């Protein structure tokens, strides 16, 4: 069993193998994302009962919470990919890390924007220095830091290593940041805990949330494989398998 994982792991490491395996999974992820998104959206927007307190405005949760969850998930995936890249010097790991940076940053932006859009009806202000939203803002700065650092280097290989190191330092700091923001929040306005998608939600409200979260996961997988394949091709332009693939694609 361990041997199977190891050689799968090594096979995924080489760009050519990754290209082939990714090619197999892209349509599958794409279809799963589309189906789950449509079903989740339908259930969330139409079927789920309105919240007794917030009325229909709570339906923003079906976009806000999955995006916030994905922004953290993508950052952790980047940190792991960076660590693998640094330790085993695996090109594909760095490619996965760098290509998911823009996806993660977009998810953070979505979480922030929908958070403030949701804040207007419930708290009356566009921006509320609430613990979760503030940590989301800091996470956005972490993403920006990585992307700016990566683009500052001329030599791609050093840029990847520097970005990986910053990503690992960042992921170690995320719990510290979260804890300090919670403490800071309780310091200034006491706890204005708003009931968000906690377990107290009835099933009819919770299932769309899980479906949407899953659909965002598939979206991330789908888009990551597409972008990583393109990046792999651009980086491996010298080798023959890239010529072969591009020629065969152009004929199509």
């Amino acid at each position, binding site marked *: 069993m361990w041997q199977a994982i190891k050689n799968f792991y090594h096979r995924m490491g080489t760009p050519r193998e990754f290209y082939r395996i990714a090619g197999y999974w892209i349509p599958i992820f794409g279809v799963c994302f589309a189906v789950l998104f449509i079903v989740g959206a339908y259930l969330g927007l*139409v079927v789920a009962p309105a919240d007794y307190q917030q*009325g229909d*405005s709570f*339906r*923003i949760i079906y976009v806000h919470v999955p995006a916030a969850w994905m922004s953290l998930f993508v950052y952790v995936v980047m940190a792991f990919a960076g660590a693998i890249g640094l330790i085993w010097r695996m090109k594909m790991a760095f490619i996965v890390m760098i290509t998911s940076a823009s996806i993660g940053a977009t998810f953070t932006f*979505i979480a922030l*924007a929908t958070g403030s859009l949701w804040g207007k009806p419930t708290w009356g202000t566009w921006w509320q220095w609430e613990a979760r939203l503030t940590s989301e803002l800091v996470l956005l700065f972490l993403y920006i830091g990585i992307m700016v650092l990566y683009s500052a280097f001329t030599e791609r290989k050093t840029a990847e290593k520097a970005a990986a190191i910053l990503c690992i330092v960042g992921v170690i700091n995320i719990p510290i940041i979260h804890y300090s923001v919670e403490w800071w929040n309780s310091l200034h306005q006491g706890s204005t805990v708003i009931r968000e998608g906690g377990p107290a939600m009835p099933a009819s409200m919770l299932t769309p949330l899980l479906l949407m979260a899953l659909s965002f996961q598939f979206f991330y997988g789908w888009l990551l494989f597409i*972008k990583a394949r*393109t990046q792999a091709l651009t980086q491996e332009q010298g080798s023959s398998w890239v010529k072969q693939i591009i020629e065969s*694609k152009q004929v199509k």
Partner: protein
Amino acid sequence: MNDFNFSEFIAMGGYAKYVWSSWALTIIAMASLVVSAIRKRKILYRQYHQQTQQSAARKQRLARQQSKS
């Protein structure tokens, strides 16, 4: 879904602005990611195509020079 009526659905209990704008924003952001990914692919193919043409042209020029000299 018997009592579904369209206009009420759009009104979203008075919060139409917020709900629809946040959903629209999410979809637009995700779509922009997909578009940029596909655009990058196109650039790669076009760039590759140009390079192969250039190197082919250069080879012909060299061949012609050799045949002349």
